């Protein structure tokens, strides 16, 4: 077990290296640079040269990369060009905010989606099934930025139940923090539930057609027992894998939801650092996102045997 985890982490190193290299090169090759943005339309070549030199951007890209790598090995991710903050604590702080949002949303979606999807599959082609499919499709086809705005206008404005902007960390004040999380979580839940329901439904359909389900039914088990004992565990395997993908994907940035609901999360930070050409910050963010991917996938694989009896151990 430990050996498996270790070897997985070691094989991830080339991926992390490649991600860093690709991000490093790509963001520098795209037209536009942080110094131009800082100077805006007040272009002065002398000031431009001086600032580039001060930020070390006048060196060749390969050289800049080596300097960055060297600092990385001593645990230094550098400082943001736009705000001057140290990158590592900033990324960790913002990640915490995104993570709580995403984890809560995915957990709620799973709790809703699994029973709905299973029952829909079990009653395939019934009117219940059709309404679940249509409902789920509708939900997943509304972009989160529209869903978010509709929630804001209805619950924030028409009903005045919830605050429209602002953010309070639940770590500082649990109840106040919770109130600010309701709408962004709801927007994510509505969207992700749509996707998950369809996933659960289709993997349940696969399992229902297998021989042992027919066998279990022939043994005289009630439908409820069949669903609970045989179908649930087997159908959850593929869902679990995709849940890992969704989680990894979301943790890497819920930029849209964060923008709509003024949440200072990692997704918004990434988008802002791309538009602001904040090289060190973007590199730090994406290195961190890549690590998150590796870790989430590792956890998913480690948990796989719990949900899929066919996989005995890793």
């Amino acid at each position, binding site marked *: 077990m430990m050996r498996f985890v270790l070897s997985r982490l070691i094989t991830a190193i080339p991926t992390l290296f490649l991600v860093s290299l690709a991000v490093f090169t790509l963001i520098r090759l*795209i*037209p*536009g*640079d942080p110094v*131009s*943005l*800082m*100077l*805006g*339309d*007040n*272009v*002065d*070549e*002398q*000031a431009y040269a*001086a*600032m580039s030199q*001060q930020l070390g951007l006048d060196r060749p890209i390969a050289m800049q990369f080596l300097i960055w790598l060297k600092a990385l090995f001593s645990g230094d991710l550098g400082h943001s060009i*736009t*705000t*001057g*903050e140290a990158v590592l604590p*900033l990324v960790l702080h*913002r990640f915490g905010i995104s993570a709580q949002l995403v984890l809560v949303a995915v957990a709620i979606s799973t709790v809703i989606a699994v029973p709905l999807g299973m029952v829909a599959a079990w009653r395939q082609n019934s009117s219940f099934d059709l309404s679940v499919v249509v409902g789920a499709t509708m939900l997943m086809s509304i972009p989160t930025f529209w869903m978010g*705005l509709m929630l*804001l*206008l209805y619950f*924030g*404005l028409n*009903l*005045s*139940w*919830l*605050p*429209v*902007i*602002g*953010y*309070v960390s639940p770590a500082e*004040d649990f*109840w*106040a923090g919770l*109130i600010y999380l309701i709408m962004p979580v709801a927007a994510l839940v509505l969207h992700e539930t749509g996707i998950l329901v369809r996933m659960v439904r289709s993997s349940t359909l696969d399992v229902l057609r297998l021989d042992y389900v027919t066998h279990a039914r022939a043994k005289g088990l009630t439908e409820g027992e069949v669903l609970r004992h045989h179908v649930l565990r087997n159908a959850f395997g593929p869902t679990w894998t995709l849940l890992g993908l969704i989680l990894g994907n979301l943790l890497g940035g819920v930029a849209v939801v964060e*923008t*709509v*609901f*003024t949440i*200072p999360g990692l997704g*918004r*930070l990434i988008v*802002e650092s791309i*538009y*602001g*050409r904040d090289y060190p910050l973007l590199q730090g963010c994406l290195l961190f996102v890549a690590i998150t991917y590796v870790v989430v996938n590792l956890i998913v694989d480690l948990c796989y045997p719990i949900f899929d009896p066919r996989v005995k151990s890793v």
Partner: protein
Amino acid sequence: MSSKKRFLLSTLPVLGMLCGIPAAAETLNVQITADIRSSRPGVNRDALSDSVALNVGEGLVAFGERGQIVPMLAEDWTVSDDGRVYTFTLREDRLFHNGAPLTAEIVKQSWEALMAAPDFTCNIYFNGNRGSAVERIEAPDARTVIFTLAEPDAMFLKNSAQSLCGGMAIMHADSFDGDGNWKGPVGTGPFVFDEWKRGQSIHLTKFAEYVPVGEGIDGYGGRKEVLVDDVNLIVTPDRATAVAALRSGDLDIVPYLSTSEAGELTENPNFQVHAAPHGGMITLLMQTADPVLSSTEMRHAIAKSLNIPELVDVATNGLGEANASLVPIGSVYHGEVQERAIDYAPEEVSALLKAAGYSGQELVIQTNRRNPINENVAVIAQSMLQAQGIRARIEVLEWATQLDRFRNGNFQLSAFNYSNRSDPALAYSAVVASKEDRGSAIWDDPEAIELVEKTFQTPDGEERQALFDALHELYLEQMPFVMLANNLDVSVSASYVQNYRTWNGFTRLWGVSLDR
């Protein structure tokens, strides 16, 4: 917050905790579209950072409402006959936020520290590059500061009052920690920089010991009376969210709204919409080095194809006013000559095109989606040009990319906005230069370069007016780009907010009160 009872908020003192103040305080909640870059005036700044800095710090002099220089921390000053020595007399009894009194020695230290900072944006104005170098600063007594310049510079005071230099705000040494690193601004302004939650909000409190001077609101200077207890600047990047928050009462002021959203709120009695032009410029740039656009006839053909009043009206949703001159309409230098424009004359276009030898080459108009006015200008200009047989295509770029192309002069047509310029000479110098010296130069003409040079050396008065008139005549003759209008600030505030105006891109928080 709002007059409506809020179901959840009323049960929990959430907002009190958000602001960290007792519930009875008068708090102003103001949108800020992005976080500030730093809290140090003039260093690592953008327009939003300037806006916060100018509420917290004050310089020796400041820009008044019509672009004139007014006293601020200096009560008076004299300029030597050779134009090189500026002697300032400081006001008495000005206090810093830490309680320390203002002295000449602190002014000297503050200037020297800023000019020594390598990332000080305005270095070029004080090191002999674009303005005269500051040779030395002396403080012979507690109330006198003497600046000696390397050469005479009529722009010295205007340069130092610029918002991008943070108005050369005087900062106390307590703004730095023991190692000389920036900690936070300790200035003399009417607001204290209290707390900065990065990515979330900036909290300013009223500086209780501030003694207002001067008569009435006047630009960055004048009478600065704070009528609220504190201000929250809440980072709200999405415009639609900001409008929803304004409607719900979570925000009291949205200082920069796009004209399209403001149009919808104009008729709503719960809101006050104010649109005011400033010294920024809405332009359609032309690359005069381009094979097609190097012909003056071609550029005139483009200008005459554009119905500029209509274009400006639609692009700014009826809030803007066309201005053919780089001198803003509100400026003391905007006179009769500046009213002259190239009029919409579609009947003359085909002859001009023929003279220019135009044979249907496609022109590309660059624009971006960050500023809706740019996108509007591009879309409308394209359709007006097409109508006169000039083929044009729109290329929408991400802002940093467009800026990069602008810097290198890599475009044919570009819907581009210049930020606020506090003096017409600065507006001209933004476009006039030799393309060899500066890739972003638009108007490369020796006569224009010389005229602009002179406007910098000539003190305010009739002689300077004549220079601006000559520049405008030359512009109309050569048509190096199309000046469309001055950019505008559109602010929206709730009906219970008194006296709020965004002035020259600046979120001016003094003088604003709440009357619910």
